[in-house]
């Protein structure tokens, strides 16, 4: 994969009257995974949203390939994928349509076959043509994960990707992350569940006190 580099300097985040964190910084290169740790309400989600450019930090700057991300929106948007607490899938579309539309909006083409394969890989082969609204909690999460796989981004920012997944699902996500990092990708992930990523270059970042 193309070389990339994410640098965060001196980030601070304020919510309401409270300072969630400050002086937070890290560097992330190809083939590395960053594990963001911290209890409930410490500001992990807030941090990830800053990292992907959805909200602005109270202080500090995030750079992608040396440029602040708010100035490199186009390139950063192409090379980064974000998976938040919300799944980002449309209830009225089938999983396949969801994947294809998401790809088209990201400026990529995704043919039927690839989409189907991705969905099969996340274990949704039986739910290909029902609207996402009737899927179970975990199945919706899986659709979002399939979207992540097909996006082909260099940097993944994952906010609790394991919520609602069963044991197979967790193993699958671990494998996905491992494959991506080994292939030279970059991953930022937060989770409360144990995540077995042994053998990878891992960094850890603690948020909040």
């Amino acid at each position, binding site marked *: 994969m193309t070389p990339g580099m994410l640098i965060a300097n001196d980030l601070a985040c304020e919510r309401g009257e409270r300072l969630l964190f400050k002086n937070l910084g890290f560097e992330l290169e190809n083939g590395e995974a960053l594990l963001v740790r911290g209890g409930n309400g410490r500001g992990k989600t807030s941090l990830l949203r800053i990292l992907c450019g959805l909200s602005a930090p109270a202080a500090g700057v995030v750079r992608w390939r040396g440029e602040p991300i708010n100035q490199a929106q186009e390139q950063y948007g192409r090379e980064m994928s974000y998976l938040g607490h919300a*799944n980002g*899938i449309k209830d009225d579309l089938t999983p396949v349509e969801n994947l294809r539309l998401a790809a088209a*909006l990201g400026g990529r083409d995704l043919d039927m076959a690839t989409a189907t394969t991705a969905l099969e890989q996340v274990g949704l082969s039986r739910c290909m043509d029902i609207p996402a609204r009737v899927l179970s909690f975990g199945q919706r999460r899986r659709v979002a994960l399939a979207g992540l796989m097909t996006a082909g981004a260099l940097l993944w920012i994952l906010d609790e990707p394991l919520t609602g997944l069963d044991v197979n699902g967790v193993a699958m996500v671990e494998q996905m992350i491992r494959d991506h990092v080994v292939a030279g990708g970059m991953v930022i992930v937060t989770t409360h569940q144990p995540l077995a990523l042994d053998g990878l270059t891992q960094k850890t970042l603690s948020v909040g006190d």
Partner: protein
Amino acid sequence: MLKFFFTVIRRDVLLAARRRGDWLTAQFFFVMVVSMFPLGVGPEPTMLRTIGPGVVWVAALLASLLSLDRLFADDYRDGTLEQMLLSPYPTSLLTLGKAIAHWIINGIPLLVIAPVLGIQFNLPNEALWMLVLSLAIGTPILSLLGSIGAALTLGLRGGGVLVTLLILPLYVPALIFGAGAVEGILSGTGSEAQLSLLGAFLMMSLLLAPWVSAMALRVSVE
């Protein structure tokens, strides 16, 4: 770039097609609101003819207003809006695309229904044509200006007032010129002036609205 733009439009139209029920319902809303007025004000034909154009225009405005609040809200709730904002293309392209899709979905059908409603108010033929024409120029304005309001309402909790406050007054010129054009026909005073003013207003909204609502969107999602 262009592809992204068309994908946005196609996506919204597809979603609307999936919920054909919703879409038809919105059109029926328009019909019903217009039909309620005679029940409120009485059946006298000459009076109905005078208020006809105004009623149809106000109803069109309400119908577009009603469907607007879901322009971004649905996408916001399920997280797809975040994903689209993270896409590599300018946000104003997104807002323009969504406004146009809104017009295709909600504006065009109004044009088809309006003459039928006009008949219920006994409007003469030329007035019917003018009604359609004025709506054809006017409804895109509603979609464009409305997208600003929809973007603003997203984040600001209880910004609802602000939007009604901001957007309905902005609609007023469209209403006055639009209904005025039809009445110009009824009263025989002609309606070129109103039509060209309406056109100018359309141009202006086309230029400005996408930028403003893109900015509003960024602020709201933060």
